């Protein structure tokens, strides 16, 4: 076998995904960002497993608003709580919110987008487009706040009437999912409209493959490159939104987050106390930057035009 034949063989075996991986690992910034995201994920996992940051809520009344020290690396807040531990614990909150929102919103967007695209031009498509249009025309934070409070009230009623507990924890997640899925749905719809006219879909129709199977087995997998990029965008948007919502008092409950820390800082900064502000902002900034660069690199790597 000649070298030329070997090369041709390699090219033949390379799929869109292998090409994307190869391209991604050629992007140094992308790899560094991915490593940072992995590090954060590892921190979050450690927090979830109870390996570290277990004393984030502990009060130290004699140590309120202290600066960095050997005991408290990033100082303490007004209640004497360790800011470093709280910032580390907040990584878990961020990942939890990011993962839940990104996964569910992307799945929902994919399903709706597929159905809408596959049935484009029918009342089903019109109906979904109408819903998407309605949601998108409401200002984001207004909508999230309204849904968040509505779900929260529903959770309290469920708790009072049926003893169902813990539902209120997901009020903000549900509120964000309710808005984030629309962007994915639009993109997937466009892609599905393109795909459904390709030969393999027409062939599936010709041999009598049922519609749902065509949609979810043959068309949906071909939109995964979009879904992956959308999921990363949703992930980082969810983290940022959580911070803003927590800052506004609409965020996560019974736990700590960077947004809550920044909200606390608004009362401290005028008095010249910056520990909470710097700690939460730095953790958030690095993660969001890393995720954005990672998402860009992923988008470049998965773009069929660029890959080909």
């Amino acid at each position, binding site marked *: 076998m000649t070298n030329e034949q070997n090369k041709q063989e390699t090219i033949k075996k390379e799929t869109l995904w292998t090409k994307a991986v190869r391209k991604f690992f050629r992007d140094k910034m992308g790899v560094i960002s991915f490593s940072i995201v992995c590090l954060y994920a590892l921190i979050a996992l450690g927090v979830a497993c109870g390996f570290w940051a277990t004393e984030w*809520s*502990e009060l130290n009344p004699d140590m309120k608003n202290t600066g960095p020290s050997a005991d408290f690396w990033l100082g303490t807040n007004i209640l004497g*709580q360790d800011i470093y531990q709280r910032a580390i614990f907040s990584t878990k909150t961020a990942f939890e919110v990011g993962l839940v929102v990104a996964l569910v919103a992307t799945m929902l967007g994919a399903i709706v987008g597929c159905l809408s695209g596959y049935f484009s031009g029918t009342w089903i498509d019109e109906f979904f487009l109408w819903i998407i249009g309605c949601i998108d025309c409401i200002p984001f934070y207004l909508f999230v706040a309204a849904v968040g*409070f509505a779900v929260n009230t529903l959770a309290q009623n469920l708790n009072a009437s049926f003893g169902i507990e813990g539902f209120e924890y997901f009020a903000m997640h549900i509120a964000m999912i309710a808005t984030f899925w629309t962007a994915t749905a639009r993109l997937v719809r466009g892609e599905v409209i393109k795909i459904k006219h390709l030969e393999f879909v027409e062939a599936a129709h010709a041999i009598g493959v049922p519609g749902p199977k065509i949609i979810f087995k043959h068309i949906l997998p071909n939109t995964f490159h979009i879904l992956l990029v959308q999921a990363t965008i949703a992930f980082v948007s969810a983290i940022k939104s959580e911070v803003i919502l927590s800052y506004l*008092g609409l965020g996560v409950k*019974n736990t700590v987050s960077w947004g809550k820390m920044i909200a*606390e800082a608004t009362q401290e900064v005028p008095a010249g106390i910056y520990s909470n502000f710097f700690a939460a902002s730095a953790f958030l900034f690095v993660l969001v930057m890393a995720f954005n660069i990672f998402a860009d690199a992923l988008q470049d790597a998965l773009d069929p035009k660029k890959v080909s």
Partner: protein
Amino acid sequence: MRLITFVGIVLSIFLTVSCGERKTAKGKVYWHSEDGAPTKLDPIESATTYANRITTAVYDTLYEYKYLKRHPYELKPNLAANMPEISEDGLVYTIKIKEGVKFIDDACFKTKENPKGKGREVVAADFVYSLKRHFDPKNSSQGSWLWRGRIVGLDDWGKAAREAGTTDYAAKIKGLQATDKYTIQITLTEPYPQILYTFAMGFASVVPQEAVEKYGKQLTTNPVGSGPFMLKSFNKTKAVLVKNPTYRKEVFDIHYEGYDEEKHGFTGIKALHGKTLPIVDTVIISFMKQDVARWNSLNKGNEIQFGTIPKDQIDNALMSKKPPKVIEKLAKKFHFDYERESGFVFSVFNMTDPAFGYSDDPKRNEMNKALRKAIRKAFDWQGRIDVFYAGIGEPFVGIIPPGISGYSEFPKDSITRDVEGAKKLLKDAGWTAENLPVFEYPNAASTTATQFFEQVRGWLEEIGYPRKKIKQKEFATFGDLNKSMKERKNIINSYGWGLDYPDAENVMQLFYGPNASPGSNASNFDHPEYNELFEKAKPMPDSEERTKLYKRMTEILLEECVGMFGFSRTRLKLWNKNTIMYPTREILSNVFKYVDVIKKDKKKKKNTKADGNGNAGDANNSGDAGQKNTENKE
């Protein structure tokens, strides 16, 4: 040419607007600030301190408090000509009102005979009408509770109006009558010594029927009163009051008002003795909810003239906390005073909640009592004061704050933190991490509220409460939180109670069974002995005998562990040295009439500018003279 005219008009409008009320106002202008805004100024709905302050400035009340006499407070006649004649059995009050007092000129008085709408004389019937309004079913009175069941026939009049669907204001009420043009006679169902205090509240302001008929719901923005000021404008951010030109002759007698050189000398208020009230021509009240905005405005020196020290600035602004004393830089610019609030903050358990309150099962009942006591032992009052109240002040035992009639001393164990004792109580009662009920801490969404929750969670964790069982129950607004409290859905309620009048009865009723939610008894405490004692003490004036009863009632509250009480916050007040006053936001409300502003002398101003000291130039005091000397004012 047209373009120039247009530009000229636009510029003049712009300049007029930007110069603001202060620059366009004539005469002396006092610029006040409040940390919240009133929503309604109709006396029947003036339930907040902010609303009360304005309603009492534009309307007259029969009585008011002496301006300088505080702790204890003392009533004095306002619209009333003198203190009332009270029958021996304490049931009949006869009150004469001043003759010749007039409502302000207003369109509501326009008639053929009075085309300019000159204000008519205030008569006794106006007071009767104003009180009846609270019981008119068409009105949403927030003050009717003050007189419900107290005045003979008043409740029945309201009931009859509800049943008939129409209100007959001409109908006579046996217990509330104008016996002649200037005499009011009130007959009570039972002795109610606090009734005089209620006549000093904004709720009891005297409103002319003509104004209510003309403006209806719009009365809130068109007040027609006989007070020292008239409302010129009112919106969510600002209210402007101007001097009432037809206000009766009232002279400031500082000695009658309770002047004490040691307490009040630093204010320079002595200079106002003999002056005709009100002194300033215009009062601008800025409603500034943001601490930072209020603080910056006060420090600018040429904006608001009164403010409080924000929580996050206390460490920078005070050189000492016991007693509070401001740093020299502030002392040069401002007069400073501190005052303990006439109220308190406290937390009460919902005694109808089976998990924490009363239970039908005697064993569980005892367990719940032990649980409440353990939570009380975990509660760190000093920690709370240090974090949220700048470490200023001390908690008190019982429910009656020091300085209020009926206050008694008790052992301090109910406000002393004892983590080990709490753990032992839980263990002895059979509580374990597994069987402890979920503790939901309700609050309205805010950063401070979350910090309150986090602090409580930290304390409870220390006594062995599992973190996952301590949850925050967050509400979008205070209204939602309040609604949940009224519907008895919260297991604990933490809030502040501002005294409506300076009498312990206003506190003890907070635990009276029949006042349970949606009434003022947020704990829904219903204890036969307590209720019986309350009813016995109700008709009594402040006396040793009543204090004895209140002491026993407080003991019951402590023994049953209804909650964690209490703490009266300390207000830190600063006012510009170009103003003369002795400000307060406790109990008193009609205070703007006593304020004076020292107008800048132009020549002096030039000299001051040359000295590079724009603010202190014309103040009559400087440096440490601006601080109150007395350490123990309470």
